């Protein structure tokens, strides 16, 4: 057993309003995160049921660094197992997706069923009376490592802890409501957008919980009123502060009012520019709560967005201390009109690696990662927008309290929360 007792983090303030930059770069912290967070007591998102609709359909997903095969059996049930052969550790499923009756490792052809149970060992009894496995070898003791899965309205979550609380309890009432609403009827997958960002994975949940940057970094947002600091908005969390939702109401400020506020704060850049084609920024009302945008993080690796009429589940896969892959799974409702599908496909221009309101995030995260690498032990991020001290919901976008919520839960799970820390 590797001993992580030595992993220490210097939190100078117990409200997490200071975050030491070394936390993004320390390989020991990264190793501990794999154990305590991704393989720890969390529900990680794997994929959507609509990606594997038929018996035998599989998809390789990742829980942190760990490759996990999610598949559907003949009875329609979902199963998942670690994609690592129980013989000598080879990767078993080698294509990212497909349909299979069973799974055979190419190295020595050990055969597994869709549940991950070992069903065949070639030459187990030897050949010509020689060789083979010892008498005591029992296939039942050599199944693949199983991942417990659960589907919440078609969103598949997995955990290595078979006694985890039910997903509804993990989500809590607020996220059961919002995620539930986004998946309240059958969906169709529109496709994937993926990007690899050369930054530590924690910078992504931080970014998603950072209400402050939305219209400063993403000028498209403020130009077209999709998200502005002057709007009626909020950043809310579950009671453990691990999950977050940022939302706002388009049209709750005026262009003139917004322009004036941004000029007064010294970040105005010219007049509000016009488009030749406004269909992309036209939002068709469908959110029952009236929110034009809501972006959620379900701790640790899962995100949902409704940005105008684009709908997606996003997930991250860690790629070492210096990188992660972000996958956007875009969807539409099965009962949407052809016109609505086209509208969602058009609005997808705003999101993903080339998204008009999202490409900047990759750049911001890479910059932070690059320059904090050389920071001294006592150099830290300052997280005070929206106030310091106790962690709670705010009805504004001029707010970073949700980021402190992330660190509070993270530090507890990692076992290095400071004395008397905010929770």
């Amino acid at each position, binding site marked *: 057993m590797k001993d992580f007792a030595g992993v220490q983090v210097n939190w100078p303030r117990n409200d997490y309003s200071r975050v030491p930059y070394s936390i993004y770069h320390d390989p020991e912290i990264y190793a501990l995160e794999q154990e305590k967070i991704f393989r720890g007591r969390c529900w990680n998102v794997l994929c959507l049921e609509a990606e594997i609709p038929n018996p035998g359909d599989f998809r390789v997903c990742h829980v942190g660094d760990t490759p996990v095969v999610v598949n559907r059996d003949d009875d329609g049930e979902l199963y998942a197992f670690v994609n690592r052969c129980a013989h000598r550790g080879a990767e078993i499923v080698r294509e990212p997706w497909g349909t299979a009756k069973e799974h055979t490792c190419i190295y020595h052809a050990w055969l597994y069923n869709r549940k991950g149970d070992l069903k065949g060992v070639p030459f187990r009894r030897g050949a010509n009376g020689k060789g083979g496995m010892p008498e005591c070898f029992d296939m039942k003791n050599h199944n693949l490592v199983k991942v417990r899965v659960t589907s919440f309205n078609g969103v598949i979550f997995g955990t290595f802890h078979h006694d985890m609380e039910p997903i509804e309890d993990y989500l809590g009432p607020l996220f059961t409501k919002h995620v539930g609403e986004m998946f309240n009827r059958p969906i169709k997958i529109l496709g994937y*957008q*993926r*990007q690899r960002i050369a930054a530590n994975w924690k910078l992504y949940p931080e970014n998603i919980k950072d209400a402050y940057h939305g219209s400063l970094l993403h000028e498209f947002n403020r130009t077209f009123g999709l998200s502005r600091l002057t709007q009626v908005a909020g950043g809310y969390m579950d009671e453990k502060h691990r999950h977050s939702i940022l939302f706002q109401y388009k049209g709750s400020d005026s262009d003139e009012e917004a322009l004036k506020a941004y000029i007064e704060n010294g970040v105005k850049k010219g007049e509000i520019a016009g488009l030749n084609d406004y269909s*992309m920024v036209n939002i068709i009302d469908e959110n029952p709560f009236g929110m034009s945008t809501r972006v959620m993080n379900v701790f640790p690796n899962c995100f949902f967005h409704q940005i105008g009429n684009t709908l997606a589940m996003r997930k991250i896969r860690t790629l070492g201390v210096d990188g992660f892959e972000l996958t956007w799974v875009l969807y539409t409702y099965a009962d949407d009109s052809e016109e609505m599908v086209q509208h969602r496909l058009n609005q*997808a221009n705003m999101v*993903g*690696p080339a998204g*008009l309101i999202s490409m900047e995030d990759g750049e911001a995260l890479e910059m932070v990662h690059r320059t904090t690498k050389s920071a001294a032990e006592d150099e830290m991020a300052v997280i005070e927008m929206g106030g310091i001290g106790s962690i709670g919901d705010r009805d504004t976008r001029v707010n970073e309290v949700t980021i402190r919520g992330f660190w509070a839960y993270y530090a507890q799970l990692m076992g290095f929360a400071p004395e008397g820390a905010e929770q």
Partner: protein
Amino acid sequence: MKDMKDVVVARSNPTIPAEIRQQASELILDSVLHLDRMELEAWIDCFDQTSCYHVIPRENIDCGYPSAIIRCDSLDIIKDRLMVLDVSSKYNPHWDRHFLNGTQFQSYENGILIAHTNFMIVQSTLEGFSKLFVAGHYEDKIVFTADGAKLRERIVVLDTFSVPNLIAVPL
């Protein structure tokens, strides 16, 4: 891996007039040179009035999923994207260089030439470090107007669909 969209074609279809192939090759080369030089107005001029420009991850095509990374269904939307790039997008400062191989001319019917061209884009930082950015191929529909050859449609099929960081400048 077999290319699921691969169709058997001759490297260069001899039934297509040499003159047409020549004009198309020049258009394709011009289009990427304009991008490398950030001459975005000139790049737009490579398109005709009713054109579209899509960047599609190869995996979406293989899975039968319709969504794109960039989906410009009209010349106006292409122009909007470049306007936004100019006034509000923030991205990694860099230089691009496209490397193309020879074009495969698939067919020429009713004045529309279908041409496929592989590309690689090498991206260099302002500090002088270069790396392969993306690879893929163009599926172009080319028309021949009084102004010369123009792109009616460019579908960029992206093999590097796990995009390094971001795509700001068109591919």
